[in-house]
C-alpha cells in the first residue's frame, strides 16, 4: 500500500480546508522536533506547501516538565503557497502543563487544543510553576479542548512488549503523531519508514513506536472526542521534483554545489555555535565530495584556516553566528586586504552578547558591514528562506571568485532550522563558476599580484605555480606589485580600488524586482528571512486593493543599481526588520528617503497579521479592500 502523495481518508466527516497551522509542544525530551520534522516531510510528500518554525530552549535539556524545558515545532501546510509557518495556530498539541501554558496564547480562539490529560497531575503543575490546573481555568473555554490520556493509551498499546514504563512513555510522541496524522488525513508511510530506519538496531523500540503511531491514528478514527478530520489538498507548486530542505542543510549543499561548479575542493573552517553548527554537521558527512571540514580551536583559527586554504587555491568557507563573527572581524579585514576569495556565513541569532542563542534575529547586518578596522568593504548577501540558502551560497562564491574578495552571507536562526519544499535542481544545469589561476608567463613578463582585471579583481596566483612567487599581508600594498607601501597617494588609491571593486558587484547582480505596482502609496522593503511574512502581508494588502508593493533585497552590499529609482516611486517606504532599524539606516543614508521602520526584536519572526496591520495603517483602503474588510 503506497499512501504517498495521497491523503488518507477517515470514515468520519472530513472538512476540506486550504491550510492548517499546527504546533506540537512538549518537553525537550519528548521529541517534539522529531515529530515536527516528520509532519513537515509527510505534508510535503502529500504535495502541500509547508513552512516550519522550530523553537527550542537554549539548554540542552532543562529540567523535565518546566517551562524552560518546553520545545515547540510549528508547521503550516497548505494547498496554496505558504511563506511563513503561520501567525496563529489552528491546533495546539500540548504534552504537558508547561507546554500548554507557554503556548496557548498563540492558538486561534475556537482552535483545537489537544492535551495529554495524564500529564496534569499535581506534580506536573508544580514543575510548570502553576498554582492551579489550567484545564480548569476560564480561558480554556475559548478553545476546543480535547483531553486524551495519551500516556495511558500508549502504555496499553505497547503493553505486551515488556518495555519498562520509561521506555513505553518514550513512545508517547508517536501516539500523538498518529493522532495528528488522522486529524489531517496524512499518510503514515513516510514516518513508518523513518521509524524502521532509525530504530533498525533496536527492533523492540521500533515495534513499540510503530504500534504507538498506529494506536494514535486508530484512536482518532474511533474516539467520540474528535468529531471530524480535515483535509488539505496539494498545493499548486510549479511542476518538478521536490524534497524538503532546511536552511542550514541548503547552505551546506549550496557550498558543495559551488565547489563542484568551480571544480574546487571545499575547505570549511568552523567552530561550533548555535544556530550555525548544523552546517558543520552536514558538511562533515560528505568527505567523498571533496569536502574537508576543519573544526578549529576557535572562530579566529577557523577563518584564518580558511584564509590559508584560500591562499592555497581552495574554495574556502567559514561560518558562525553573531558572537563568533565578532571574533572574526580582524581576520575579515586581512581577507579584504589580501583580496582572497572566501565565503563567510553568519547565521544570526538573538543578541547582543550571548543573547538568545536559539532565537532568531537580523541584528548582525551592520556588524558584517562595519565590524572591522579601517575602510574594509565586502559584498553582503542574505538568504530569504530555507531553500534560498542553496542559491545564496552559490552566488556568494560566484561573486567572491569573480572579485577576489570575501563575501558575507547572512542567514538567521529562523531559516536555518526552518524547512520548506525545494525544487531539486540538476547540478548540470547550473552555470559553472569559471576560475582561472594564472601560470608563469600568462600574465606578461613580470607578474603583478595586484594587477586588475575589468572588475578590478586581482589574479589568484597560487603557491606551487612556477615563477609567480609573491607575498601578501595585512600592511597596505603598493598598487600592482603588492609590495608594502606607506605612500599616501597609494593608500588612497588602494582604498578606492577596494571600494570600487566591491561596488562593481552591482554589475554582476540582477536588477531589483518589485512585486506589485510600479508606483504607489507604499513600498515594503525587506531583506533576509522575513521575506515570507512580508510577501504574504503585502499580497493580502494588495488583495484588499491597497496600493502597496514589495521589494525583497538579497543584496545588501552593494545594493542593486536600480534600487534608488524604485524607492523614488512610492510615497512611503516601510522597512520591517527583526532589529532596531539597520537596513533602514543604510537606505536613509544612501538614498535620503524617509523610510520608516517596523521593528521587532523579540527573538521570533514576524507574524503576517502584524505586518498587514502596519501596512493598513499606512495605506488607504483600496477598492477591493473596502469590499472585503474595513480599513485598519
Amino acid at each position, binding site marked *: 500500500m503506497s499512501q504517498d502523495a495521497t491523503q488518507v481518508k477517515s470514515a468520519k466527516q472530513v472538512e476540506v480546508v486550504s491550510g492548517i497551522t499546527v504546533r506540537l509542544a512538549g518537553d525537550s525530551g519528548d521529541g517534539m522536533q522529531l515529530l515536527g520534522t516528520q509532519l513537515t516531510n509527510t505534508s510535503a510528500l502529500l504535495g502541500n506547501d509547508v513552512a516550519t518554525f522550530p523553537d527550542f530552549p537554549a539548554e540542552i535539556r532543562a529540567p523535565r516538565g518546566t517551562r524552560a524545558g518546553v520545545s515547540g515545532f510549528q508547521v503550516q501546510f497548505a494547498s496554496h503557497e505558504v511563506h511563513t509557518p503561520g501567525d496563529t495556530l489552528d491546533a495546539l498539541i500540548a504534552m504537558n502543563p508547561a507546554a500548554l501554558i507557554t503556548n496557548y496564547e498563540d492558538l486561534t480562539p475556537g482552535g483545537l487544543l489537544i492535551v495529554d490529560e495524564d500529564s496534569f497531575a499535581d506534580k506536573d503543575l508544580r514543575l510548570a510553576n502553576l498554582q492551579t490546573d489550567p484545564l480548569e481555568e476560564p480561558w480554556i473555554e475559548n478553545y476546543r479542548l480535547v483531553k486524551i490520556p495519551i500516556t495511558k493509551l500508549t502504555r496499553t498499546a505497547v503493553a505486551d512488549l515488556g518495555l519498562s514504563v520509561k521506555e513505553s512513555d518514550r513512545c508517547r510522541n508517536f501516539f500523538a503523531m498518529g493522532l495528528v496524522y488522522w486529524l489531517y488525513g496524512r499518510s503514515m508511510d513516510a514516518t513508518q519508514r523513518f521509524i524502521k530506519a532509525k530504530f533498525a538496531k533496536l527492533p523492540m523500540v521500533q515495534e513499540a513506536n510503530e504500534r504507538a503511531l498506529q494506536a494514535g491514528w486508530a484512536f482518532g478514527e474511533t474516539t467520540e472526542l474528535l468529531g471530524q478530520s480535515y483535509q488539505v489538498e*496539494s498545493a499548486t*507548486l510549479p511542476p518538478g*521534483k521536490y524534497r524538503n530542505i532546511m536552511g542550514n542543510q541548503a547552505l551546506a549543499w549550496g557550498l558543495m554545489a559551488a565547489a563542484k561548479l568551480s571544480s574546487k575542493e571545499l575547505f570549511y573552517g568552523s567552530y561550533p555555535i548555535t544556530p550555525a553548527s548544523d552546517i558543520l554537521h552536514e558538511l562533515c558527512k560528505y568527505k567523498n565530495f571533496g569536502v574537508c571540514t576543519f573544526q578549529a580551536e576557535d572562530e579566529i*583559527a577557523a577563518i584564518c584556516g580558511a584564509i590559508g*586554504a584560500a591562499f592555497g587555491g581552495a574554495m574556502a568557507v567559514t561560518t558562525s553566528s553573531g558572537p563568533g563573527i565578532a571574533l572574526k572581524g580582524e581576520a575579515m579585514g586581512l581577507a579584504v586586504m*589580501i583580496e582572497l576569495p572566501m565565503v563567510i556565513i553568519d547565521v544570526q541569532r538573538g543578541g547582543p552578547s550571548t543573547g538568545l542563542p536559539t532565537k532568531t534575529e537580523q541584528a548582525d547586518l551592520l556588524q558584517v558591514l562595519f565590524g572591522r578596522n579601517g575602510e574594509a568593504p565586502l559584498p553582503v548577501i542574505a538568504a530569504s528562506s530555507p531553500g534560498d540558502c542553496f542559491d545564496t551560497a552559490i552566488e556568494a562564491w560566484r561573486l567572491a571568485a569573480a572579485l577576489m574578495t570575501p563575501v558575507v552571507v547572512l542567514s538567521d536562526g529562523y531559516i536555518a532550522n526552518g524547512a520548506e519544499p525545494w525544487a531539486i*535542481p540538476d547540478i548540470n544545469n547550473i552555470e559553472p563558476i569559471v576560475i582561472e589561476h594564472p601560470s608563469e608567463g600568462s600574465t606578461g613578463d613580470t607578474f603583478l599580484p595586484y594587477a586588475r582585471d575589468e572588475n578590478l579583481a586581482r589574479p589568484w596566483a597560487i603557491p606551487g605555480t612556477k615563477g609567480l612567487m609573491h*607575498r601578501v599581508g595585512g600592511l597596505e600594498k603598493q598598487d600592482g606589485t603588492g609590495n608594502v607601501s606607506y605612500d599616501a597617494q597609494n593608500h588612497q588609491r588602494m582604498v578606492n580600488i577596494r571600494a570600487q571593486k566591491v561596488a562593481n558587484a552591482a554589475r554582476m547582480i540582477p536588477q531589483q524586482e518589485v512585486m506589485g505596482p510600479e508606483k504607489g502609496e507604499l513600498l515594503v522593503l525587506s531583506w533576509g528571512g522575513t521575506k515570507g511574512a512580508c510577501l504574504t502581508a503585502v499580497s493580502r494588502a494588495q488583495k484588499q486593493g491597497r496600493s502597496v508593493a514589495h521589494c525583497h533585497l538579497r543584496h545588501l552590499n552593494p545594493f542593486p543599481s536600480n534600487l534608488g529609482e524604485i524607492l523614488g516611486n512610492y510615497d512611503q517606504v516601510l522597512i520591517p526588520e527583526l532589529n532596531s532599524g539597520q537596513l533602514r539606516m543604510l537606505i536613509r543614508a544612501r538614498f535620503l528617503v524617509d523610510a520608516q521602520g517596523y521593528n521587532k526584536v523579540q527573538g521570533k519572526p514576524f507574524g503576517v497579521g502584524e505586518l498587514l496591520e502596519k501596512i493598513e495603517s499606512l495605506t488607504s483602503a483600496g477598492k477591493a479592500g473596502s469590499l472585503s474588510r474595513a480599513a485598519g
Partner: protein
Amino acid sequence: MSTELPVLKANDFASDQDVRWCPGCGDYSILAQMKKMLPDLGLPLEQIVFVSGIGCSSRFPYYMNTYGMHSIHGRAPAVATGLRVARPDLKVFVITGDGDALSIGGNHFIHLLRRNVDVTLVLFNNRIYGLTKGQYSPTSPEGQITKSTPMGAVDHPLNPIRVALAAEATFIARSVDSQVQHLASTLYRAAMHRGTSVVEVYQNCNVFNDGAWDYAKEKAVRADNTLELENGKPLIFGKDRDKGIRLNGFKPEVVDLSSGISQDDLLFHDEKADPIYVQILAGMRYPDFPEPIGVFRDVENDVFEDQVRGQMATATEKKGVGDLNALFNSGDTWVVPETSAAR
C-alpha cells in the same frame, strides 16, 4: 624541457625587497641561515610558503623569494594549518616571535602542535616585543625592566619547550642566531621532519633587549652556558668539554668530568626518548645549568592533514566520488506533475 630541478643558491631565495630590520638585529642571521639551508631541501622556490604573524620577526616572508603571507598577530599557525590541509604538496614554514607565538597566539601554537600539522615553525625568541618598541613578553624573565614594567615583570615566564611538550610536539629544537652553522643545520633538521617542528631561536634584539642571550652567545662563556645536544652522545659541555650532566633522581646535576666521573655515568641524549627526558632537558636553565641547544626531540606521530585527507580518501573509496544529483534526490522526494496546476 628538462624535468631536472635547477640547483638553487642561497641568493635565489632573496626577494627584491629591502630588508628592514635594525642594523645588528639577530633576525638578519636567521634569514641568512634559512636562505643558506633551503637549497638543501631540493625544493623549487614555488613549492615553499612562509607564513608569519606580526612582529619584527614576522616581516620575514617579505624577504623570501617564495610564496608568503604576513598574516595577523598570533594567527600564523591557523593560517598554515588551513594551507597545509588544502595543499599538502607545499612545504610550509611558520615564522613567529615570542609575543606572537606565546602571548596572543599561544592557543594556536598549542593546537598546531597537538594536530601535528606538517609545518616548520621558527620561533624568534628575543624575550621582548620588538615591533611595538619594547614591552615585556611571555619569555621575559621575572623582574625584567621594560617599557611596560618599570618596576620589573612579575609574570612567571613561559618555557616554549615545555609548552610545546605539553602539546605533544614531535620535533623540538633550539638554536642561537649567532651560531650560524648550528642554526642552519638545526633549521634543516626541522624542515626535514614530518609533522610540526618547532625551533626556538635565541635572537638578540639589540635595540630593546640587547644582550639578553649574551650568556649563550658570547664566545668567552657560551661553551660553559650551553650544551650542544648530539643524538646518542653523553651530555658534555664546557670550553674544555670537561663538564657533564648526570641524573640524580629526576634532577639533572652538573658534574666535573675531570674529577673521575666517567662519561658512562652521564645522561645520553636520545631524540626519541620519553617526553619525561625532554622535560628534564627543558628544565635546564641558565645560570644553574647549561642550556641545551640542538634537537631535543624528533619522533613520529600521525600528521593531521594526512589523517584528514585520509578520511576523505577512505570515504571516497567506500562510497565513490560524491554525486550531488544523487544526494539532492536522496530521501523522501515527490513529484509535482506538469498538470498539477490544473487540479
